[in-house]
């Protein structure tokens, strides 16, 4: 079975380390916050200017002046700091965020990522995504391995406008955990019950498959 959204988030959460400052993109990445391992503490950075993002507010805590980068009402945890957008992106672009998790439309064997625009269809803008992929050393892309129509999203070359060039090294999909190096995808783990054949078939870019491909653990 391909991973559920929750399982994807659980797998990504295994990459967390105690004391990490983490920026989570909209969608599946946001769910990662629900699976921080016990005894571990991470601090969430929201690029509109909040370090130490807490859970959604209760009804009586809702405050229009307290939102996250997805424009949702949120709270701040103890130890949080709040600052300007310039300061927020100084943090991000200066490489101070330990881990960035974001979604994508496509990635390719060169580590390129396309995630913000489908010409003629979707022209909303990149928001902070270009800054995040350019500023972080440690990025995890989460997405489905293929589109609804079965088209691979792990390509020899991205077809959509890029969000960033040569910046992606780790991809967690609903089928596999794949790393990118030396112009190739490297299969590291498969989702429980998913065959290597299915992953190979749904990966358009060159994929290096080791003799043994362990199943993901959560």
């Amino acid at each position, binding site marked *: 079975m391909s991973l559920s959204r929750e399982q994807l988030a659980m797998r990504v959460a295994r990459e967390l380390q105690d004391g990490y400052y983490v920026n989570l993109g909209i969608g599946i990445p946001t769910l990662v916050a629900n699976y921080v391992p016990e005894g571990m503490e991470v601090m969430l950075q929201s690029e509109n200017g909040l370090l130490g993002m807490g859970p959604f507010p*209760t009804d009586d805590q809702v405050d*229009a*002046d*307290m*939102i996250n980068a997805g424009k949702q*009402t949120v709270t701040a945890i103890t130890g949080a700091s709040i600052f300007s957008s310039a300061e927020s992106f100084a943090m991000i*672009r200066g490489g101070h965020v330990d881990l960035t998790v974001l979604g994508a439309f496509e990635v390719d064997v060169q580590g390129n990522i396309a995630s913000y625009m489908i010409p003629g269809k979707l022209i909303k*803008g990149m*928001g902070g995504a270009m800054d995040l992929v350019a500023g972080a050393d440690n990025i995890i892309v989460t997405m489905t391995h293929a589109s609804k129509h079965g088209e691979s999203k792990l390509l020899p070359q991205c077809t959509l406008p*890029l969000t960033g060039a040569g910046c992606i090294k780790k991809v967690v999909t609903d089928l596999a955990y794949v790393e990118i190096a030396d112009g190739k995808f490297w299969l590291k783990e498969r989702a429980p019950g998913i065959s290597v054949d299915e992953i190979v078939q749904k990966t358009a870019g060159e994929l290096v498959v080791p003799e043994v491909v362990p199943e993901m653990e959560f």
Partner: protein
Amino acid sequence: MSGFDKVVGSYEEAMAGLEDGMTIIAGGFGLCGIPENLINEIKHKGTRELTIVSNNCGVDGFGLGVLLEDRQIKKMVSSYVGENKLFEEQLLAGDLEVELTPQGTLAEKMRAGGAGIPAFYTATGYGTEVGKGKDVKEFNGRKYILEESITGDFAIVKAWKADRYGNLVFRHTAQNFNPMAATAGKITVVEVEEIVEPGELEPTQIHTPGIYVNRLIKGTFEKRIEQRTVREA
């Protein structure tokens, strides 16, 4: 004494001098911390052919979105404009120009504009559409693109508290782009929830020193919420 009293008596006075074709830099992120009444005054004034530099363009019927209704905006410089249908319509019809700018680059361009830095190098956007046509330079083995700063004829800003010297404090995440916007306007206009007595704001805790502020007005705010998300108590 009067030289430092930035308080003006009306929104009309606050936006006096705004003319067709000018560039306005606006604070706010989504609908959070936006100068809603100053925007409404621009709508009321009917100024046209505006270039607006703002992370977003409000929503249909609120925030900067209201300036789309009478096609007052010629061009938007934004990182994300996905919240309004009218925007998309005018964009597809070719009535509106948009310069998509990465959010961090946008914040830095405003700061640089206010700080006398005409341009800076950044890794953001290298190898993408954003980098096309821009100078590329390598530092320590990595490639960066040259981004130029932004200044505006006007900057419109929303703060929480101010004293009449124009010293500003922002509330929670309503700070966002406002401090940078405040530095980058030839004329910077600020609306606030409360004007306090000089001396009430602790000098080291002022987010924006009054030197950047030309006009100040106390407003009342709707503070619309874009995505109300709650959990069980």
